């Protein structure tokens, strides 16, 4: 009987666990380790953050689901990976600390035949002084953050109804952030709710982003085939901002957030200040705090993880200039760089480089989006790696691995605001592939430069 451990129960980890159990049945063990008792459908935290959903609508307890499916669940935090075992044997192991109230603080070591690291991101609010719900800005990254943000938003609306003008800023809180799409969606949810509340004219709404231009979304922008013309996401996004009366500051690195004022630096080297009454700024991500040790107990974290804390997998991590980037740099199997029975998926794997062209300000500050790894590709990665592991367990350790490179995978993005058939609006787009050919003539000849996408703005 083989044992597979999945660390993390987000989109990629949960998907991988379900596919593994389906493929392996009762003949093999599937174990999920997650510090949270609940699954959180994070994309819907956007609507919790404007008060349109409550926490029960965006999360559910994992334990009953896993119990029904025969998956063993440990509510615990992964603290170390031992790819080559320890003094007791060469079988790989992970060290965990229970967060389950019944065993809180208890440490354990679990052995595995295969390991999937789907631990997601660490929300790195500490990268910017004053950033985050424990300091001077708000967030929708977790349900708790989103609920606090919804309360603050309701308070601002109440004050506007009483006649006060308010300044609302939504965006990203660091030059190296990702998830601009989430900030974009939250911006237009806030705009929608302000209109619904009848206070739109009392609010000055500003989108603050590290993107070089509107519509970049961390993927270097998109090209649309629209009514026989190649249009782009920049024009489409600018049109939406004009239509909805939202201001934008792009190419911005937030240096600090003081109470009521954001300090930022722009790509042209100038600095500015943006006063606010309500600011929801997403943090940059880094890998979770997890160590790796060899069988003798020596720290090998630098071999297992990139400096960003994300896991090194089968990507080409050799530093190279933008002109030499290639879709082939991106991982295909998500197999760890140092152990054939470990895989890193979802946000937990280290990308080889960004997708958007990297840019720095004259002072050397990197102001460029990190590559997004959204729900749809994360789910595909989870399924792909689950199928690879099931294949190896059933057919032997040399069975061919399944592949799912972001350079040959599409993604769908749906941004919606409001609810109901007559009172909401939505924009949807698909893009293929996620990682495009970079401006290398050799690459262009092998892959279409234009990524097809179809904007479909819904109700206005």
């Amino acid at each position, binding site marked *: 009987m083989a044992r597979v451990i999945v660390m993390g129960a987000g989109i990629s980890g949960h998907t991988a666990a379900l596919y593994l159990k389906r493929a392996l049945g009762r003949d093999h063990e599937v174990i999920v380790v997650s510090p949270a008792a609940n699954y959180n459908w994070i994309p819907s935290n956007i609507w919790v953050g404007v008060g349109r959903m409550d926490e029960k609508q965006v999360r559910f307890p994992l334990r009953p689901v896993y119990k029904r499916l025969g998956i063993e669940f440990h509510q615990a935090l992964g603290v170390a990976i031992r790819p080559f075992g320890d003094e007791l044997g060469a079988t790989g192991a992970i060290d965990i600390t229970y967060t389950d109230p019944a065993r809180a603080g208890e440490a354990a070591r679990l052995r595995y035949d295969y390991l999937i690291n789907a631990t997601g991101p660490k929300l790195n609010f500490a990268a910017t002084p004053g950033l985050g719900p424990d300091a001077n800005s708000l967030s929708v990254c977790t349900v708790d953050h989103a609920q606090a943000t919804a309360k603050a938003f309701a308070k601002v609306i109440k004050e506007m109804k009483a006649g006060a003008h308010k300044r609302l800023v939504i965006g990203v809180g660091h030059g190296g952030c990702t998830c601009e799409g989430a900030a974009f969606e939250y911006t237009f949810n806030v705009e929608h709710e302000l209109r619904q509340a009848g206070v739109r004219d009392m609010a*000055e709404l*500003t989108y603050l982003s590290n993107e070089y*231009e*509107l519509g970049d979304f961390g993927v270097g922008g998109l090209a649309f085939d629209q009514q026989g013309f190649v249009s782009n996401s*920049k*024009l489409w996004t*600018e*049109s939406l*901002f*004009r*239509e909805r009366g939202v*201001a*934008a*500051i*792009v190419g911005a690195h937030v240096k600090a957030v003081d109470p009521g004022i954001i300090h930022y630096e722009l790509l042209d080297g*100038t*600095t*500015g*200040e*943006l006063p606010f009454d309500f600011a929801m700024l997403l943090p940059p991500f880094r890998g979770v705090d997890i160590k790796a040790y060899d069988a003798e107990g020596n720290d090998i974290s630098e071999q297992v993880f990139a400096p960003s804390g994300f896991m090194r997998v089968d990507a080409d991590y050799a530093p190279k200039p933008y002109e030499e980037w290639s879709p082939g740099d991106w991982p295909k199997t998500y197999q760890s760089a140092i152990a054939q029975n470990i895989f890193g998926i979802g946000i937990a794997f280290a990308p080889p480089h960004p997708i958007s062209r990297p840019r720095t300000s004259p002072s050397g500050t990197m102001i460029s989006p990190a590559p997004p790894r959204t729900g*749809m*590709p994360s*789910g*595909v990665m989870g*399924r*792909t790696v689950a*199928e690879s592991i099931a294949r190896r367990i059933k057919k032997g350790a040399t069975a061919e691995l*399944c*592949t*799912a490179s972001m350079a*040959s*995978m*599409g*993604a*769908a993005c749906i941004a919606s605001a409001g609810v109901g*058939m007559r009172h909401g*609006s939505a924009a*949807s787009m*698909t893009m*293929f592939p996620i990682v495009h050919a970079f401006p290398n003539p050799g690459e262009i000849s092998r892959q279409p430069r234009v990524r097809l996408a*179809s904007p*479909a*703005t*819904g*109700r*206005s």
Partner: protein
Amino acid sequence: MPTDANGSARIDSTTEAIANAPLPTPRTLRSRKSIPRQIVRFCSFNARMLRMVAKGHH
């Protein structure tokens, strides 16, 4: 309105680009509100997503 380090209002190229961006025509706005059209587009978009997920790995 954001200000620069001297406290002056900042009008940058993004602000200009937004001010000059195209607006939807009345016909486009009507089509966005057409429930039958949006149902067709909803179904077509979901079919496209399913196709992408199915083809996303090998």
